[in-house]
């Protein structure tokens, strides 16, 4: 089971990329400071808005700051918001979705109503506005806001799944043995939802990274922190696009897209592993089958 998980190409790609960025976020300062010897905030006045060179591998900004160093530092900011917001969102989604699904009845009615409400609210504009009110907030606050407003979709999925799990025979059986509700949720239902929760977490993380980038682009961000979004915003405010300073605004966007792709791939892979219908439609399976079919046909011709 584990080996098939790790040998799935999409999963592998996803894990490698996500792992890489998590590593960057964790070891970034060490990497830039000790290994590469670059400082994201240092200004090299001799290289202003300079294209990539041997000295600055990804070029410099209008302020003579090293783009690579900023990119690595930005990984930390973006991943921080992503992970924190996803944590908050996932916890809320579990609280709302699983509780509603498990207990049903009035609890479900109320919680589900709240979920649906958050679901149909345009969350991104809402986040913009709330953060707009709290002008000049830190990354913590931004992550909290994103997390607090971004859980509804996950809660809905979890509720539906819980509903289906709650009346599964194994839950009834354990209940019949005398298990308490908290243990039923914790030991029987939640582990069963592990895959859903993990994929929810990943999508929430991507959502949060994208939302943070959007907020930073609107100028709502922590001026003390570097994130990919704030890099793009800084580039934009210095007319980097018009001036063709692509090395400044392309890499952070690519990083966001890359980690988003990786997370989506991970989810995809998990889907494919858990859903045999999807699994049988992957390129590998189809190719393998075609190859055998061709071989058989060739045999038939020669025979």
């Amino acid at each position, binding site marked *: 089971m584990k080996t098939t998980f790790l040998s799935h190409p999409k999963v592998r790609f996803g894990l490698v990329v996500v792992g890489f960025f998590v590593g960057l976020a964790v070891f970034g300062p060490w990497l830039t400071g000790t290994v590469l010897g670059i400082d994201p905030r240092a200004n090299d006045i001799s290289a202003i808005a300079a294209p990539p060179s041997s000295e600055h591998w990804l070029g410099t900004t209008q302020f003579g700051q090293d783009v690579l160093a900023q990119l690595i530092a930005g990984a930390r900011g973006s991943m921080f918001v992503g992970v924190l917001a996803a944590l908050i969102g996932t916890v809320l989604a579990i609280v709302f979705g699983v509780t509603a699904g498990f207990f049903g009845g009035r609890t479900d009615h109320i919680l589900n109503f709240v979920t649906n409400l958050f679901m149909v609210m345009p969350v991104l504009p809402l986040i913009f506005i709330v953060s707009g009110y709290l002008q000049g907030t830190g990354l913590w606050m931004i992550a909290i806001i994103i997390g607090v407003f971004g859980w509804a979709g996950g809660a809905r999925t979890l509720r539906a799944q819980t509903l289906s799990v709650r009346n*599964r025979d*194994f839950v*009834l*059986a*354990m209940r*019949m043995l*005398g298990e308490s509700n908290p243990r039923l949720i914790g030991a*029987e239902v939640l582990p*069963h939802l592990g895959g859903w929760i993990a994929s929810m977490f990943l999508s929430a993380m991507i959502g949060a990274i994208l939302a943070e980038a959007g907020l930073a682009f609107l100028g709502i961000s922590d001026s003390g922190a570097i994130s990919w979004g704030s890099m793009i915003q800084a580039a934009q405010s210095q007319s980097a696009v018009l001036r063709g300073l692509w090395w400044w605004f392309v890499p952070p966007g690519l990083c966001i897209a890359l980690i988003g792709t990786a997370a989506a791939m991970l989810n995809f892979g998990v889907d494919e592993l858990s859903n045999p219908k999807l699994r049988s439609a992957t390129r590998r399976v189809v190719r393998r089958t075609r190859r055998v079919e061709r071989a058989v046909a060739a045999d038939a011709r020669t025979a």
Partner: protein
Amino acid sequence: MSSPTSTATDEGTVLSAVDVSKHFVVRNAVGDSSVVRAVEHASIDLYAGRIVAVVGESGSGKTTLARLLARFYEPTEGEIRLEDVPVGKGAAGRGYHQTVQLIFQDPFGSLNPVHRVWHNLDRALRIHDRRTGRAERRRRAIGLLERVSLTPGADFLDKFPHELSGGQRQRVVIARALAVAPKVLLGDEPISMLDVSIRLEMLNLLGRLSRDEGLAMLYITHDIASARYVCDDVVVMYAGQMIEGGPKERVIGAPAHPYTKLLVESSPDPDRVGTTSRDEQFADAETLGEPPSLIEPPTGCRFHPRCPFAMSRCALQEPPRTDLGDGHWSRCWLHEEGRADEIGAESYSAALARRTTEPAL
């Protein structure tokens, strides 16, 4: 109508349902609610060391009955008695389930795929006796597995459900139910999801548990032949009601209700091969009809719209319970009208054919 009679009066019942009904409220998209009368005025007694089978068509309320007995549902009417003591409303706690355990139809579904066999048994042992140590629990778990013929038990403790075959899974489920040392085992079609070849082993196991260990057992099934194989008594349900009951050979061998006869004659019986031609066997089986809606059940006897023997009174009044001796009873107007002989006189389809040519009503 609700005379709680028991077939064997010498022993006390372990678990009984006395005149229970269960109505469900279902809502459609419009928000209209309607009442599904899933079980109506059913009574059943379970005795130590005996197996009672409940047979009936799909939707006749068998599962509902089992769940009422397991106290998953609160009866709409009537009461459940445990060792002759009425069980109070909403009090189905640990105590109750230490006595009564339910085995589900799908062995895969009733084992959480994320937990090992050990977890399942361990939880059951721990919940009901918090003092025993881990080593002791482990010893007991192995004992339980060996009781259900999973030998050597230790080999199975660390397996995940998906590493077990269907039969092994169902044994684990039974072992888990036995872990709390219950007196009653309720089996809701415990073998229907298993492969044909291993069903018998399961039935033999259930028979052994009842016979040798004195468990009272309810065995719910579609398959009359298997009911006959394992049980002592048979109860037939139709559209939420119990229409016939008694010792298995009497009920299956000489049905006293037209529906029981239909059920027995519809069941596959390879012994028939060769005795009549195939076309004859299946002749007129096309018009056997479908079970009625439980939302607006037919008036009077619920079987009357399909019954080849139906009389005008069948549509008006519910038939009373007629005791036929030896604990065999039936609910059919034919007994009251003295036409009971007609039931056994010819095959069901023949009766049906006759009726279509010369309407009885």
